[in-house]
């Protein structure tokens, strides 16, 4: 029971709670100019819907205090000379002071604000000359929802951890209690032992993955553009890869605790950080990109996104399929080798 309840609870919580949708960022305003243009611009910033003015500051010395209390992420500063410069020199500076201890928010806020200023400048100039209009089409994800990014990642992570954990712990448990000895002196071949061990967990994990995906579609509005058969195949291949990884771990450890630490400690964080779930793979340094390639979740995330969101066919995604199958083969071969050696 807990095996179904846990993943579902996690997907629901993360589906709702994890988002990097850019809205309601708390900012502070320090307006020493207080002229018409600055007030107009502040209205424009608030009107964008991305920002909420959390604090109005009086003097520059207030800025560190505002940051240290963590109340605002950025301060928009109109210096005293703003109006004069604008009037005389036709251009004036405003400052964005960002709390870069939270880098993502700092980059996003400044780039959105610069965009707003650019538009503002443009409109002011338009009366006198013709401009260029911009239109943006967001492909695959029109409303820029973050569930498109997070749900596939969460599915991959949970499936991997659960399948690998389940098998590694079960086999290690048999070792601990000595029942594996009994099995190995029986006339059953090591292949049979492994297959027999894996099948119940395969069914369990597959059910789990379908449940999570249905949840993603019906509760979080993930699209299902591509072929259902391909998606099922992808889940099947990935689950088998995760299970055989679990077997591999179990053949290498002696106790349940070691199996657990090995699967949880060595799989969880790398899967989370190197699979493209949290950090984009393109921005990883080269050696880590190589490691990322040997993490099964990386390929599964590509598959899910390609099939569900983009509707890609097999010709475009045979590669991740092939890699996952090759990995499974390696895991199984190595574990059979070590099982034989134990015998």
């Amino acid at each position, binding site marked *: 029971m807990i095996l179904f309840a846990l993943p579902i609870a996690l997907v629901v919580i993360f589906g709702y709670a994890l988002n990097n949708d850019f809205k309601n960022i708390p900012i502070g305003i320090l307006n020493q100019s207080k002229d018409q243009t600055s007030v107009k611009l502040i209205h424009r910033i608030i009107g964008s819907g991305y920002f909420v003015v959390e604090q109005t500051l009086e003097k520059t010395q207030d800025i560190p205090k505002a940051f240290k209390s963590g109340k605002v992420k950025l301060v928009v500063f109109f210096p005293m000379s703003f109006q004069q410069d604008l009037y005389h020199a036709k251009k004036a500076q405003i400052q964005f002071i960002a709390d870069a201890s939270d880098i993502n928010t700092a980059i996003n806020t400044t780039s959105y604000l610069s965009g707003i200023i650019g538009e503002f400048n*443009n409109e002011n100039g338009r009366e006198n000359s*013709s401009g260029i209009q*911009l239109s943006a089409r967001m492909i695959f994800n029109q409303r820029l929802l973050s569930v498109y990014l997070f749900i596939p990642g969460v599915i991959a992570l949970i499936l991997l951890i659960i399948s690998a954990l389940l098998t590694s712990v079960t086999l290690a448990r048999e070792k601990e209690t000595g029942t594996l000895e009994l099995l190995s002196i029986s006339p059953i071949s090591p292949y049979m032992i492994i297959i027999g061990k894996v099948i119940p967990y395969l069914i369990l994990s597959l059910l789990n993955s379908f449940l999570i995906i249905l949840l993603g579609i019906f509760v979080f509005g993930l699209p299902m553009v591509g072929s259902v058969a391909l998606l099922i195949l992808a889940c099947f291949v990935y689950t088998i890869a995760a299970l055989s990884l679990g077997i591999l771990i179990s053949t290498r450890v002696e106790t349940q605790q070691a199996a657990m630490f090995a699967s949880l400690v060595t799989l969880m964080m790398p899967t989370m950080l190197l699979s493209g779930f949290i950090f984009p793979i393109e921005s990883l340094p080269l050696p880590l990109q190589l490691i990322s390639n040997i993490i099964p979740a990386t390929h599964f995330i590509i598959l899910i996104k390609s099939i569900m969101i983009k509707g890609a066919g097999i010709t475009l995604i045979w590669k991740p399929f092939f890699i996952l199958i090759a990995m499974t083969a390696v895991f199984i071969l190595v574990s059979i080798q070590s099982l034989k050696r134990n015998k």
Partner: protein
Amino acid sequence: MRNILVLVRKEFLQIFRNRQLLPFMTVLPVIQVILLTFAANYEIKNLRLGIWDLDQSTSSSQLIHKFTGAKFFQETDLITNQKKADDLLMQDAIDLVLVIPKDFEKNIKIQNSPPTIQFQINALNNSKAGIVQNYASAITQDFMSELRSNANVSGSVKIIPVTNFWYNPTLNYKTIMLPGIVAEVMTLIIILICALNVVREREIGTIEQLNVTPLKKYEFILGKLIPFWVIGHFIFWAGIALGRLIFHIPMVGSLGLLELFLAVFLFVPLGIGLFISTAVETQQQALFTSFFFIILFILMCGLFTPVETMPDWAQWVNQLNPLKYFVEVNRLILLKGSGITEIYPFILKMFVYGIGINALAIWRFKKTN
């Protein structure tokens, strides 16, 4: 007191004797922290640009030149039809298609018929798409203001934004990621070993033996917690020291203060682990329950995704997430140099939380035995 010391000694002996488990608690986490910190990079660079120029004029090539000259665009593909654009987007081969309409040049010069430039952006990664759109708009706007100044239009005014990044002027992700990942890995391991340890004693029956000794409950619990408390310290400070050596993470504030926070903080994951161990029967159950909490704590602590944009109920639940406080304290002490006045509420919260969860665990522990 002597009893506790004996028990602590016994636990340490057990830990060091277990050759297979020892590296998982000590060296491996630290190596992992360093390795994963190298991954910490959201930086959007090396964007791939598709150009679909329907105008083929001087102006359009000027605009294209502005795009290809920008530092974020690394590779460019020439596109001649929508099918090609769709294909490249599908294969993840480009991030942005810049579509310049026919008669772009002609229309720029005519008043009241501004041409429309289209950006087709691969939005699978929503935050990246937002940034790409901003980059592209900024470049186009730049192009326009140059056009305007060439045309010598008078009367237009310009506001120039200047950006200052405080506390981390070079926008180095590693400085904030490393202490955060150290805290995460440490918490993961502490919860797990603490939860598994007690359950294991119950599973193999040695807890019965301890129960018949004159050991008091609180002595037993303290004897269990102290060795793991020490291991937590080891993981944290080894990670931070290596981070200082390899990534030069800043340490603006007082390390003593950070240690004070850590010393109080560690009782929270220890208590959580202990509580889990009292609520389950087998090691497998302990593992799954720990996994559930650990993954929640890690993903919701504010290191990877902002805490502010979570819905209210999630923020409310997140008050119980010890890692959320740790990530904030790391930022405050190491980057901003906050002092005891800013940190003291955090220490107090962790103190209350630690007492609460441990009391709960001890109470449950009495009931189950």
